[in-house]
């Protein structure tokens, strides 16, 4: 190594150590702010002591930590533009479904020659069979074309996509906003970068969107700002990017309906009733119905109309993907690891291919090894007459998910029902109000699940936490002040009294309760959780935990 290299590495080491110091200083300062800034009088008491305020003391509880996914609401918070519209359409489908208890949104495309598994891993059987919604029936469609360099080692390493959304202005929520104002082909457009999202890719991505006659065009790519703007200038509503706008060597990699995204979101989180529609497109979940684990082993098989060119769109959802063959046809297999506590905790393997009759088939395995998923895919066989109808009739509604026993050494503080499953707050019976003491477990749909410990920090005051899934918001936390009641409330809406629970050995009660996720929908004001003493005086208020979640 040269002297120059040594000098550079020495300088790097000095910078690295300085970077560590400033990071720790910033985090320390941030922690102090979280604890005392909003109420300097609030003491940072040890975990085993009671604050015992002599006078009513309003403690503004700290900001909530973002909940970790996967859960449907997470995508709504993360996404704008198309995904927000997709969520809105899904909501419309939900409303239509809830009104009379039966789906009334028809699926597009012609009748499909359904396939069903000829082989399944031991113990798995059908638990849920639903139709996949056709968002076009709700006035929305989206198509995407993806470009890359087919001669590179990984053509999907720097994809360039153009998406054409067809929807009225109400569904789209108005013209694009935010970012930098630019002009694309004479249209007012908004340009935004996606740096800081944390995927470790240098350079990030750029996205530009603008209104067109029937909706919106969006061009996005993991390319430079100039390359994305050049591509936008050459974009059409086909959708396509004409050759003059493509980087050298780029060609079309895949094309198809972007409404696939709803399907994939559902597949990765467990197909939920929200996405149920009516028609020939079908998703069937296979699992062991006696399995009370929060994270089920399952296989989901989905079929819907779609072109062979859409097969590779699976890569938009699972970057770790390879080309294979299924039934001697081009297919893509992708693998992913989801967070602990999610439906994909034990790994997700997805295979997608197109049958010659113009249908896309997707097989997704949760906690099922790749060999088994491929065997399911290869073993798909034509359904017998009446077989699919019988599946739909028997499993249109998945049996509600039920918990098994709580883990040894823990106690269920509170348990309740959600739309298709259960939630519960679990505490350790022996421990004080401390780290890791409270856990939320949820199960819903055919395989949806959440298991997470949150909202229980080392230092008081402790955050309240909220979790929104399966039509139910669960709120929980430790009540560190003496209070006679705790309510969730917002202007113009009936307050919800949240139950508090004593836990043996704990010095403070636990707040744990739930309410329907649309309870505060009609309020235009802030949703807050308020604790009051016996005289009705406010002693604690949290204005952030239900912000957007209730």
């Amino acid at each position, binding site marked *: 190594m040269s002297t120059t290299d040594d000098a550079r590495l020495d300088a790097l080491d000095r910078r690295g150590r300085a970077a560590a110091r400033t*990071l720790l200083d910033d985090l320390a300062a941030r922690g102090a702010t979280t604890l005392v800034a909003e109420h300097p009088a609030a003491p940072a008491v040890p975990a085993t002591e009671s604050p015992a305020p002599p006078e009513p003391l309003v403690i503004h509880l700290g900001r909530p930590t973002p909940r970790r996914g996967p859960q449907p609401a997470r995508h709504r918070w993360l996404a704008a533009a198309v995904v927000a519209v997709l969520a809105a359409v899904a909501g419309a489908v939900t409303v239509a479904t809830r009104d009379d208890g039966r789906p009334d949104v028809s699926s597009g495309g012609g009748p499909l020659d359904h396939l069903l598994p000829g082989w399944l891993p031991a113990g798995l059987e059908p638990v849920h069979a639903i139709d996949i919604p056709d968002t076009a029936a709700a006035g929305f469609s989206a198509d995407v074309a993806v470009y890359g360099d087919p001669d590179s080692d990984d053509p999907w390493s720097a994809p360039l996509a153009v998406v054409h959304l067809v929807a009225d202005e109400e569904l789209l929520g108005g013209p694009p906003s935010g970012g930098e104002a630019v002009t694309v082909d004479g249209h007012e457009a908004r340009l935004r970068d996606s740096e800081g999202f944390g995927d470790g890719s240098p350079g990030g991505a750029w996205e530009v969107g603008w209104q067109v006659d029937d909706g919106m065009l969006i061009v996005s790519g993991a390319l430079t700002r100039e390359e994305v703007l050049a591509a936008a200038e050459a974009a059409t509503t086909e959708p396509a990017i004409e050759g003059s706008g493509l980087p050298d060597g780029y060609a079309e990699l895949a094309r198809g309906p972007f409404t696939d995204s709803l399907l994939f979101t559902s597949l990765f989180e467990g197909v939920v009733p929200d996405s149920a529609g009516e028609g020939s497109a079908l998703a069937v979940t296979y699992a062991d119905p006696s399995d009370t684990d929060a994270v089920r082993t399952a296989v989901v098989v989905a079929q819907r109309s779609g072109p062979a060119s859409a097969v590779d769109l699976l890569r938009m959802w699972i970057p770790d993907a390879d080309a294979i063959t299924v039934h001697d046809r081009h297919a893509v297999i992708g693998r992913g690891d989801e967070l602990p506590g999610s439906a994909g905790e034990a790994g997700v393997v997805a295979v997608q291919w197109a049958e010659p009759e113009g249908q896309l088939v997707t097989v997704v395995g949760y906690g099922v090894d790749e060999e088994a998923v491929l065997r399911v895919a290869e073993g798909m066989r034509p359904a017998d007459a009446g077989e699919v109808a019988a599946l739909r009739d028997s499993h249109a509604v998945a049996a509600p998910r039920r918990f098994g026993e709580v883990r040894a050494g823990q106690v269920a503080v509170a348990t309740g029902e959600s739309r298709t499953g259960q939630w519960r707050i679990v505490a350790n019976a022996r421990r004080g109000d401390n780290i890791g003491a409270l856990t939320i477990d949820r199960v819903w749909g055919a395989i949806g699940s959440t298991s997470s410990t949150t909202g229980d920090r080392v230092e008081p005051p402790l955050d309240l936490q909220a979790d929104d899934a399966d039509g139910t918001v669960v709120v929980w936390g430790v009540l560190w002040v003496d209070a006679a009641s705790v309510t969730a409330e917002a202007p113009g809406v009936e307050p919800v009294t949240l139950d508090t629970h004593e836990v043996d050995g704990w010095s403070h009660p636990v707040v744990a309760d739930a309410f329907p996720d649309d309870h505060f929908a009609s309020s235009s004001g802030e949703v807050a959780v308020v604790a009051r003493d016996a005289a009705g005086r406010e002693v604690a208020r949290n204005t952030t935990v239900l912000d957007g979640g209730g």
Partner: protein
Amino acid sequence: MTVSGPIPESGVGQADGGAGPDIAFDAFARGQRRALVALAWTLTGDVGAAEDVAQDALHATWQAWDRGGGIRHPEAWARQVVANRAVDRVRRAGRERRALGLVGARPDPTVDLPTTDHEFWDAVRALPARQAQAIALHYLEDRPVAEIAEILGCAPATVKVHLHRGRRALAAALAPETEEGSR
């Protein structure tokens, strides 16, 4: 700079049904949480995510602590969980970004860390995952190779390779700034 001492062996992981292990874990959690958040942040770049990851790691540590089997090196164990879950989190975010970012997804709002050298840590995050983990433990906690190897569950020689490659890549990526900063 060392924010944590040498990895201690803990004999308190054997649950005895009393309060002893809990009190010991309390002290452990209080002493470790900030360092775990910092480690998670260096790998995720998101304070909220880092707090979640650290929280999950402490919970997982406590569960293992509480199960009665004991944890020989709880500091190393918790850091291993943080390192792995932070990378899982980043991979998941990458998948979401590829899917959602292509059509307008926005990053989660990040909490500002005003004096932090974001460029440096961004460059760390751009390294391959294993190199980033080793580099983070090297600079953030000033841990020797043997301890990094224990935390990452690999051989010391492997850590040396990760550190060597990671430092060279960082030096190249940050060359002008680092040289300037060294003057």
